[in-house]
């Protein structure tokens, strides 16, 4: 009898695993590593910010959103950048002619100038997007911080 109850409760617990996995495709909490989004995230050395992400429909986005995306050169690596320009926008690059972002692509940059982003590898396909950062959940001192306060350089060439 006890064994049967244990098996049932085990089965009950296992049946919730897909729900938990599917929930991570809706919202997700993730740790930010590296300094590429400084000063907005990981403001100083030794800081590790945790952020709440919206994973559902990552393709609905706008200029200024902070997004998580797969690195184009290593799909196992995830980067956190800010969307700086959408498809068909013309972008000022640090050296060279302005580039027009192709269809289905985004221009992403970190707020830190020392960031490996579209300045280095060009526009990225928006299929690589994983989610959008909604807010900082940890540490508590950064609760309610305005993610759009420092948004790096202005890249879009106005016509």
């Amino acid at each position: 009898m006890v064994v049967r109850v244990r098996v049932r409760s085990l089965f009950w617990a296992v049946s919730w695993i897909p729900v938990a996995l599917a929930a991570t495709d809706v919202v997700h909490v993730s740790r930010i590593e590296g300094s590429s989004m400084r000063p907005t995230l990981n403001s100083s050395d030794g800081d590790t910010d945790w952020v709440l992400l919206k994973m559902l429909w990552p393709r609905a986005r706008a200029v200024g959103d902070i997004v998580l995306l797969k690195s184009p050169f290593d799909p196992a690596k995830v980067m956190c950048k800010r969307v700086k320009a959408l498809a068909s926008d013309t972008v000022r690059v640090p050296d060279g002619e302005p580039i027009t972002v192709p269809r289905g692509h985004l221009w992403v940059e970190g707020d830190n100038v020392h960031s490996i982003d579209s300045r280095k590898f060009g526009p990225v396909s928006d299929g690589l997007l994983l989610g959008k950062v909604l807010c900082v959940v940890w540490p508590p001192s950064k609760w309610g911080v305005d993610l759009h306060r420092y948004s790096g350089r202005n890249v879009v060439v106005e016509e």
Partner: protein
Amino acid sequence: MSFVSKLAGHVTGQRRLDLTTGPGADQTGQGRSEADRPPPAFPPPMSRLPSAFTTVLKCVSLLHVTHTRVYEFTETKGESMLPTLNSHGDYVHVSKWYRNGRDVQMGDCVVLQKPNDSNRRVCKRITGMPGDYVLVDPSLAEEDTYPLHYKDTNGADPLDMYIKVPRGHVWVTGDNLPYSLDSRTYNVVPMGLITGKVVAANDMNKPLWDEEGKILGFRKVGNTFVDAVQ
């Protein structure tokens, strides 16, 4: 005995049981355990709602998790993979183990998001792995019908040149080269856009069970790469 009277008999029998062993017995008898108490004959319908909700939630979640991480069975359309896959009526079995380009090899047939339109998925074959040099396709330049054929500003022909596939990218082409929009137009594709590998296919236009015993034209879709150097 009709169904209704059977039902009525069952219900009245249940009630009679309730009366004899239920509340009356509990009031007088001592030491009666919880298990001996009969279950309520008519559970209120509202009490079943949360259970139905969680069941639906679990089923939808299981389907979603299976579809994104384990296996998918989906329709394919278009001429670009002829003769491996038909232009209509074909359904493919996709293994999601190979998503994000995990363990993919030269010659594998993969499903990927279109780099310039991520809402659409395409099925192509990998014809260049990271580090390989690929000749784009000068045969397209000879036919003047190729819509995207243009010359560079300095006279270079983008179709008649070698491209080195960068780290973390693949070169993909359709099996039906003249009727395929692939890496020859949108260049190398990051492996992060690969959602799975086609392992088998069914043809819904075929009979359910043909003379050879194949169900709906089932066949495996394998790796077609032949290493000519060896």
